[in-house]
């Protein structure tokens, strides 16, 4: 029993001793015992019965989570047992329980007879927004539960339902078996349904959440299983459905993830995604994935050493793809080690093995997007050794030099167009010069930094399939690099000069800004670059990137690739604004048409997501996504969340316009009402209304 058993202390302004056994105290009387504290106008203590007779106004507190106001009480001296009259009990400064009589037993149970329970503000004589009236309520402080007998729920004074027995968690409860907040969900395909989540704790380290979802069109059980281990945790979620959309089929999906700490600082991570019907995930809005990825990796990451090995499996849900002809089994292993020899600089050794396999064995290219044979399987090993160092030259030029070699060896099967094995070396050397100039004027700092990188890479291109480097990007992150191809199946070779200039403005009081220009000049164009990548020709597109940030929480970041006629090849921008009243994030992208990237027409889209305060207790949500090129909306959504000190009401509607043979446009509508004050998740920290 955690409560302190020590003797109770009484303090008062005046104390009378009457007879041998009666002590009466008056004048701001206080009785203190363990974490319990009673304040009253008058207390008389009978030594023989060890009982206190208390006359109000009484304030009894236990710790900082329980407060009882009452008119009169008869308690034992350690305030653990006894009867209190006209009690009003407040749990966690939020849930109020008023009762004609409150009996305390062993400082654990409080039994309230003819009780009214609510967490709502009570203004004058108006009934609170909601209250639960019960013949009896028992509060079990150890289990943190409230048990109601003969309970009647009233909203604004109007009784709406009656339950013979009911159990609710007290505001301190963070984890207990029981019903969570139900929600009404209306979906144009599945009609109106009800989701009633039921949470089951299986000991301290495991729990299951079962959510039956029933509507006129579907009988579904959603589930989630979580388990924490000493050295890791796992979480699985899924659903099983019988519905009128596909009556002949029991549809199901499963998603899982987890990680474990392994010996010697290694770590294992896994993710799992599987579904038995391609349309299931979008019909029920369980996931937006259009390719199901399951992967397991073991890795160790240290300052000077990176080790990672993983196996992945893909299943595509895209209509223009077939799981047999896409690389679906992928194995990756990579190792990097950084040494810092006494004679200076850094020696960086790396090794990477990658292989991927397509189920199909056909030796010719079918109808899929790539031009490789449908059965092509490939395995490659790259070993690299590079030395690099940085110096500060006179006049403040910062130089970085690097020299090294990468040896690639490929093994390609089931594609007669390529030799089974092919390998080659790529020596490379590069010198990067940066010349940062700074200016400081009344608190504002500016940095102008011209940069130049002269690179030479030898070796000749390998006759291997381009399976991994078909989507190349060009931005400030790879302006200064040896090769901008994402995988070694293509490498930039020959000489090239990358030039750029950065301007940065830093003002702790005002706005920050950044502007970058960059371009790459090369001796000979590289035909592996697609037109829209901006890296074709002997002079790349001009990269312009900019960013603006102000103190009000707005951040605007944008970049574009402009070709010689200053027409845009690619433009992307992102804005985010977070202030206490508004959270907004918006994105824009424009990609020029490029058949090599299977983009017959230009792609352009803007999207935004926002949440904002409408009033102190009302919060709005708006989201939208619009395909500018196709001039049609992709999705739109709005939501309203009303939350005050005793109730959370969430209403949201969203419409997805996309359609295909497996995806049908759908409008989702969901509505939840949650009572605040029961369980820690919903209690505390909200805007209390004031009485008007």
């Amino acid at each position, binding site marked *: 029993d955690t409560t302190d058993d020590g003797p109770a202390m009484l303090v008062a302004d005046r104390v009378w001793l009457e007879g041998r056994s009666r002590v009466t105290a008056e004048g701001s009387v206080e009785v203190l015992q363990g974490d319990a504290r009673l304040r009253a106008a008058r207390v008389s203590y009978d030594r023989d019965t060890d009982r206190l007779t208390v006359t109000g106004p009484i304030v009894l507190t236990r710790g900082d989570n329980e407060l009882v106001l009452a008119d009169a009480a008869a308690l034992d001296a350690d305030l653990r047992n006894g009867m209190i009259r006209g009690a009003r009990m407040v749990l966690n400064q939020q849930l109020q329980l008023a009762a004609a009589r409150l009996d305390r037993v062993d400082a654990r149970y409080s039994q309230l007879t003819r009780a009214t329970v609510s967490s709502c503000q009570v203004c004058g004589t108006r009934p609170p927004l909601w209250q639960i009236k019960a013949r009896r309520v028992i509060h079990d402080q150890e289990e943190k539960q409230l048990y109601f007998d003969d309970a009647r729920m009233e909203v604004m004074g109007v009784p709406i339902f009656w339950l013979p027995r009911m159990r609710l968690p007290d505001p301190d409860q963070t984890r207990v078996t029981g019903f969570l907040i139900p929600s009404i969900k209306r979906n144009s395909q599945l009609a109106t349904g009800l989701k009633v989540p039921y949470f089951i704790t299986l000991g301290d380290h495991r729990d299951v959440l079962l959510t039956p979802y029933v509507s006129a069109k579907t009988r579904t059980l959603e589930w989630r299983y979580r388990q924490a281990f000493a050295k890791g945790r796992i979480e699985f979620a899924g659903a099983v459905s019988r519905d009128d959309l596909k009556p002949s089929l029991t549809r199901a999906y499963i998603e899982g993830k987890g990680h474990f700490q392994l010996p010697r600082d290694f770590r294992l991570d896994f993710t799992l995604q599987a579904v038995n019907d391609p349309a299931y995930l979008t019909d029920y809005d369980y996931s937006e994935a259009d390719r199901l990825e399951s992967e397991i990796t073991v890795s160790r990451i240290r300052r000077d050493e990176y080790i990672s090995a993983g196996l992945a499996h893909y299943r595509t849900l895209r209509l223009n793809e077939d799981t047999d002809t896409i690389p679906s089994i992928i194995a990756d292993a990579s190792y990097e080690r950084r040494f810092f020899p006494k004679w200076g600089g850094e020696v960086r050794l790396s090794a990477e093995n990658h292989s991927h396999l397509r189920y199909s064995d056909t030796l010719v290219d079918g109808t899929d997007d790539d031009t490789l044979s449908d059965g092509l399987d490939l395995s490659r090993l790259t070993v690299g050794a590079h030395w690099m160092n940085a110096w500060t030259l006179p006049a403040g030029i910062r130089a970085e030099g690097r020299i090294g070699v990468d040896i690639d060896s490929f093994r390609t099967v089931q594609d007669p167009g390529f030799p089974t094995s092919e390998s080659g070396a790529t020596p490379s050397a590069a010198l990067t010069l940066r010349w940062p100039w*700074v200016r400081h004027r009344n608190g504002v700092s500016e940095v102008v930094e011209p940069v130049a990188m002269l690179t030479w890479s030898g070796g000749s291109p390998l006759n291997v399939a381009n399976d991994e480097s078909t989507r190349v990007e060009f931005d400030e992150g790879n302006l200064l690099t040896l090769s901008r191809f994402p995988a070694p199946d293509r490498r930039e070779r020959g000489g090239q000069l990358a030039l750029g200039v950065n301007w940065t403005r830093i003002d702790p009081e005002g706005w920050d800004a950044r502007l970058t220009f960059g371009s790459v000049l090369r001796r000979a164009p590289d035909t592996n670059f697609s037109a829209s990548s901006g890296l074709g020709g002997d002079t790349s597109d001009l990269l312009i990137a900019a960013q603006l940030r102000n103190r009000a929480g707005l951040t605007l970041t944008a970049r574009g690739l402009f070709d010689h006629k200053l027409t845009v090849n690619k433009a992307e921008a992102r804005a985010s604004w977070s202030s206490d009243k508004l959270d907004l994030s918006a994105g824009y992208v424009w990609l020029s048409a490029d058949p090599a990237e299977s983009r017959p027409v230009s792609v352009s889209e803007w999207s935004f997501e926002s949440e904002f305060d409408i009033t102190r207790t009302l919060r709005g949500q708006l989201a939208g996504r619009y395909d500018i090129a196709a001039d049609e909306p992709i999705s739109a959504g709005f939501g309203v969340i009303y939350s005050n000190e005793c109730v959370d009401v969430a209403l949201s509607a969203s419409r997805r316009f996309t359609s295909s043979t497996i995806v049908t446009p759908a409008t989702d509508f969901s509505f939840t009402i949650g009572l605040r004050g029961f369980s820690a998740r919903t209690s505390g920290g909200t805007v209390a209304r004031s009485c008007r």
Partner: protein
Amino acid sequence: CGFTPAYAPQGGADTLSRAVQVRAPVTRNDYMLTRQLETRLGRAVAADYLLDYTLTVQDERIAITANNITRRFNLVGRASYTLTTMDGTTVTRGTVDSFTGYSATGSTVATRAARADAEERLTTILADQIVTRLIAAASAT
């Protein structure tokens, strides 16, 4: 016009060279951010400063097709950093953020390679922004 070379002898930025010990990495993104910071600042032999950072990266779908295929992802990164002397007094702090995009219309392996490359580009951008702000702070004192 008031500009002076930051790494010139009286510029102040060279005090950072080989003098900053960057935080040890936990994730692959941390590894690339620490590696780029150490490459730019020079690996500290006897460090005078500690550079701590917290890095968050989230991805967002963008360019959704009419039949609900995600053609592109944005990786949105934010790094907040603090430069302190060895005894813990803060020299400067700040946050930097940016995003990089990668296309998901290629094969599965092309998308995986593009994503890994986008992560590397993002951490390079964030590291370069941190170094630029450290140069500004070091040359201001």
